[in-house]
């Protein structure tokens, strides 16, 4: 009787501790946190690039499905969680997240979904992070990069392989094939950008640091004081001074930066503006990332190699 009481107390303690552990403890660098199971594999994603990467990793695997949590036309930076989107999380086996500031909305959503078996794959867990242009915070735009895309696709493959050991080799093969495809785009652009006439640029958005570093392009300054914030008149004036002083002739902008502010900057300095996609909105598709990044690479070649006199 006493022994039974002791076991009951122990079971209660274990249950209480387990309850407090939260959901989705399978971080990107974790090792023993994923439990192999069988059946369909439903993987959620928070950002557009993660959809493309994961779709390529699971291509041809029976039962695997990639589920975007956000509607395609909504930028993660402007997103407000909806009950329908939370309901999607309840049916997932795993979810691929940024985890360093780009999708902070997702953890409360996971908690609200009550899905306590969800494996969270933090793609940045093994990625070296650069500092943001302003302040000490890390730059969370790791997805705007060929090399991070390749490495993080491999991490996704590895984590999904722990969930589905029988498909681990296929995930790995797919991730490598996808990496080779991205690398071919990167190398073709690098071959041209090695002869860039312009090596320093200003960007309006702090999202391109990883991409520019891959091509050896220096970032002279970032117009936006923080992600999504419009610069004040003084901040814009300071940037105009910097562009003039350093003879910057190319400004890289995102699609939806206010045209009036951009015109002020270019009118005052004579710099030319080129648009680099943030890969943040649109129709989810396996080829969305590589298409957008090929266009971005072509834009860089035009801005830095072929357009300058």
């Amino acid at each position, binding site marked *: 009787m006493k022994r039974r009481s002791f076991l009951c107390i122990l079971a209660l303690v274990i249950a209480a501790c387990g309850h407090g552990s939260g959901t989705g403890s399978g971080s990107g660098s974790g090792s023993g946190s994923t439990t192999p199971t069988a059946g369909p594999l439903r993987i959620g994603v928070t950002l557009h690039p993660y959809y493309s990467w994961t779709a390529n990793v699971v291509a041809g695997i029976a039962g695997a499905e990639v589920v975007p949590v956000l509607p395609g036309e909504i930028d993660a930076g402007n997103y407000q969680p909806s009950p329908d989107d939370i309901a999607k999380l309840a049916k997932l086996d795993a979810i691929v997240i940024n985890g360093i500031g780009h999708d902070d909305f997702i953890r409360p959503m996971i908690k609200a979904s009550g899905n306590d078996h969800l494996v969270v794959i933090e793609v940045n867990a093994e990625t070296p*992070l650069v*500092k943001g242009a302003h302040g000490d915070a890390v730059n969370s735009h790791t997805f705007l990069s060929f090399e991070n895309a390749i490495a993080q696709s491999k991490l996704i493959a590895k984590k999904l392989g722990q969930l589905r050991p029988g498909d681990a080799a296929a995930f790995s093969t797919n991730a490598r094939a996808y990496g080779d495809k991205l690398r071919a785009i990167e190398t073709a652009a690098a071959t041209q950008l090695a002869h860039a006439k312009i090596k320093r640029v200003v960007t309006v958005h702090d999202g391109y640091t990883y991409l520019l570093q891959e091509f050896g392009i220096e970032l002279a300054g970032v117009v936006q004081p923080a992600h999504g914030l419009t610069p004040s008149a003084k901040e814009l004036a300071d940037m105009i001074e910097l562009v003039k002083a350093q003879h910057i002739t190319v400004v890289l902008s995102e699609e939806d930066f206010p045209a009036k502010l951009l015109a002020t900057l270019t009118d005052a300095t004579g710099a030319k503006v080129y648009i680099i996609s943030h890969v943040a909105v649109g129709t989810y598709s396996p080829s969305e990332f590589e298409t957008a990044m090929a266009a971005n690479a072509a834009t860089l070649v035009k801005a830095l190699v072929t357009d300058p006199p």
Partner: protein
Amino acid sequence: MTRPVLVESPSAMRETGFVVRIAFHVVMWSAILMTATWFPRGGAAPAAASATAIGEIAFRELPGDLQRIYRRCLDGLADAEEVRADTAAWPTVEAEATRGVPPFARDPIDKAGYRWELRREGTAVNYVGTPATGPIVVITILEPDPGTPNDPTAYTDDQHHRLRGGEMIHVAVWIGTKPVQGVMVTPAIEDGWKRIVMGAAP
């Protein structure tokens, strides 16, 4: 014929003993489980891990061109690990270069002119990158001794990787200027070698 059995309630001392034992087990198991909950072995590196020790340099403190080299080394290392998992052998520099894998493939952006070489001795493997100018870069890999059982719960981070077959390996990327002799596991700090640490959010 029946035999009488005398059933006695436990003495006060024995009863107290039971309660003390139960209380001890509750406290002990609670502590163990709460520790495991708050500090999971598989979790991401805590922010404190970003601090560097003697013989280390943080990725974010490197100049842009070395940050770029380090990122390419991680890409190449990840690919080499996949090849090692598939073929049980570390790929040659030439094989990786042919597939366009950095940092081994020709790099049109690289101004330092790195040339890469694979060295192997026992369980130690090095990919040594020697530039025309600038620091030497060495990717070190240490495999487990043959016959070492795999530990599925072992911690993974930027120094401890798990191959697809379950084997744990030690890896690191080093920079230094002293020419490399033979195969290194841990280069001498007194010779100026520094291990690049990824760190966490500052």
